[in-house]
């Protein structure tokens, strides 16, 4: 079956394309790209006025299956991804039990395939049970399809374990993703340490707790030659450390989340538990420079669904985390692109070749022969964030009721439409 995407504006940073192109899709792959392709007998999808991008990749989500299916399942998570304009997501291993072995990696992949929505790529645990003590069977999981390794949610505390993980990962040329947090400095911190935490009487969560681990990881990466990826970076100082490391040619990459890019720690002043996440909201301003100058490799949502009952408690007792798959693209279009903080092509890069490059995958491009994973945006579609429309099982978003301009309207994987709200 052939499909022709006609009259859309293609923005493909990898190929340097920004202009009107028609795209012919055949057997799930891109068969032709040209300024104008005759429809012939092909099914035509008219995308006039819309923007065609390579399929967006979210390299940091939590789908809670197995173990916490009341929050999210692979199927509902993958549907939320499709609805949010993502064609692929990488799932963190902090499931119950922890995804630290081949059978769980295979299970999550199988659940993803069955869902038939966005592609689901598992991230295996670095250590058994994510307990930071003993390396998990990284090679076995890699063979089963794990795209990266991380103890996300649990920082790798021991420098020795981190060193071994970085050394060992070199066999497979895959990144070790670290959630950078010095647990002793954070202790029972709940919000960023600053005037807001001081005023509200919360134990503060200092930025330096992240910086110390980012610094350690960079040094270990440079010493071992392993690839370290900094998850959800949240401070200016960490960004500076990564920037300097990159300028030395180190194998260090990093991601930031949409919520850290648009919300400051003041957002917690109403004690809304939907503003409670790890790392905490700090100063959005601090991250924007790194976004623009190339320090940041990817925007990732850290989609962390929690049931509303779990969030409907005292602020300090609520679990950390917010959902993000279904708001990320609108937030970035409205707050970053339409406000001229970064151009559209840079945003697309941060959602496509950026994360693909971190994971070492040949994805995120619109080129002949590539899998037809496509994200179509309506840059001017007005949207009011409404949890009722979420495909996710959870609604813990700090952006509920926000009015935003710009929205993904069509998501395709292998040329198949997995979400359509044109």
């Amino acid at each position, binding site marked *: 079956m052939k499909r022709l995407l006609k009259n859309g504006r293609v923005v493909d940073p990898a190929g340097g394309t920004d202009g009107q192109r028609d795209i012919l899709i055949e057997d799930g792959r891109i068969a032709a790209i040209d300024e104008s392709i005759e429809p012939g007998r092909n099914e035509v999808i008219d995308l006039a006025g819309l923007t065609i991008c390579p399929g967006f990749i979210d390299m940091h989500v939590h789908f809670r299956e197995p173990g916490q299916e009341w929050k999210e399942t692979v199927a509902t998570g993958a549907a939320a991804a499709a609805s949010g304009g993502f064609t692929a997501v990488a799932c963190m291993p902090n499931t119950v039990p922890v995804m630290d072995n081949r059978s769980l990696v295979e299970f999550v992949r199988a659940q993803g395939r069955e869902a038939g929505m966005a592609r689901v790529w598992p991230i295996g645990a670095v250590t058994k049970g994510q307990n930071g003590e003993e390396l998990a069977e990284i090679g076995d999981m890699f063979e089963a399809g794990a795209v990266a390794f991380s103890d996300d949610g649990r920082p790798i505390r021991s420098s020795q374990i981190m060193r071994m993980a970085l050394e060992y990962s070199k066999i497979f040329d895959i990144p070790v993703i670290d959630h950078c947090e010095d647990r002793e400095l954070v202790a029972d911190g709940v919000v960023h*340490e*600053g*005037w807001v*935490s*001081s*005023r*509200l*009487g*919360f134990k*503060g969560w200092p930025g330096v707790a992240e910086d110390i681990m980012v610094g350690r990881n960079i040094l270990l990466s440079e010493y071992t030659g392993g690839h370290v990826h900094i998850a959800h970076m949240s401070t200016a100082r960490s960004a500076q450390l990564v920037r300097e490391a990159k300028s030395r040619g180190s194998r260090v990459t990093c991601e930031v989340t949409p919520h850290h890019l648009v919300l400051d720690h003041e957002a917690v002043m*109403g*004690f809304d538990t939907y503003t409670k996440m790890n790392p905490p909201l700090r100063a959005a301003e601090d991250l924007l420079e790194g976004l623009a100058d190339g320090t940041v490799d990817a925007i990732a949502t850290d989609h962390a669904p929690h049931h509303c*009952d779990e969030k*409907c*408690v*005292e*602020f*300090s*007792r609520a679990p950390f985390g917010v959902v993000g798959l279904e708001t990320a693209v609108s937030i970035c279009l409205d707050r970053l692109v339409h406000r001229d903080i970064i151009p559209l092509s840079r945003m697309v890069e941060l959602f496509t070749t950026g994360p693909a490059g971190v994971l070492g995958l040949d994805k995120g491009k619109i080129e002949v022969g590539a899998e037809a994973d496509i994200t179509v945006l309506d840059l001017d579609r007005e949207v009011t964030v409404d949890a009722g429309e979420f495909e996710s099982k959870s609604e813990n978003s700090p952006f509920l009721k926000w009015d935003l301009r710009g929205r993904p309207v069509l998501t395709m994987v292998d040329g198949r439409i997995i979400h359509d709200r044109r």
Partner: protein
Amino acid sequence: MKLSSRHLLGIDGMTAEEVALILDTAEGFVQISAREIKKVPTLRGKTVVNFFVEPSTRTRSSFELAEKRLSADALNFSASTSSFSKGESLLDTAKNLEAMSPDFIIIRHSEPGSPHFLARHVDATIVNAGDGAHEHPTQALLDAFTIRKHKGRLEGLRVAIVGDINHSRVVRSNVLLLTLMGAHVVVCGPPTLLPREFDAMGCSMTYKVDEALEGADVVMALRVQHERMNAGYFPTTREYARQFGVNGTRLKLAKDDAIVMHPGPMNRGVEISGDLADGARSVILEQVANGVAVRMAVLYLLAGEPARETTS
């Protein structure tokens, strides 16, 4: 003149006029506690639940007395005697309380923002009786009332607050209230117990007690909680007392007519010397007495609030 909120969640968000209204109203309640019959029928038929998730004897007693002197029906509901300790959520516990149709819920809780949380989810008027290290608005109001009684004003006064600033809800409400009313507040404590950027609240900060006490009209010592004593914030209790304890010698730096306050309970010989606590300048027991009047004033003013709205 009335209060703009139907809850008292904190000093944060109040206007100077509202604070003055509460303090003025409290004047009228002081005398009731001095009478033979210490009771007025004002809140007859109203039900007040004292929901104390964190133990507190003095604040609860003060509220309870205020409620009883206003003829309200007071119900004490403490964590240890409730299903709350069996793992029931705050929301479910509150909903259960609400099913008994209380007009007020007075809440003390170890977590900041808990009263705000309740205000969003239940219909009753919520009064914050202390939420973690966040706020303790009725304590700040009774402190201000006591200061005003002695100094005749709040504006232009220099108030020194010395002690564990970090874990104190009293200091936060006091700084907000006193600066709102035009006083200058200087907070003082070991750097390990001074929260970062605390001066963003409008006070000044110092690590030097002598600097804090210099020229002060009011000196307030804060309790060092036992669990902090061995938590590494300072080397020993002895050293704390020497560095930060308020005593007669240090008090000489303050104004001659400076008053000495303490929200209680005191550790004599640690944050305050015994002779000061019992001395002529001490108003510590007046604070306790005024607490009842101020809480009566708060309940009186909030009970008069108009029709229930769902927004907080």
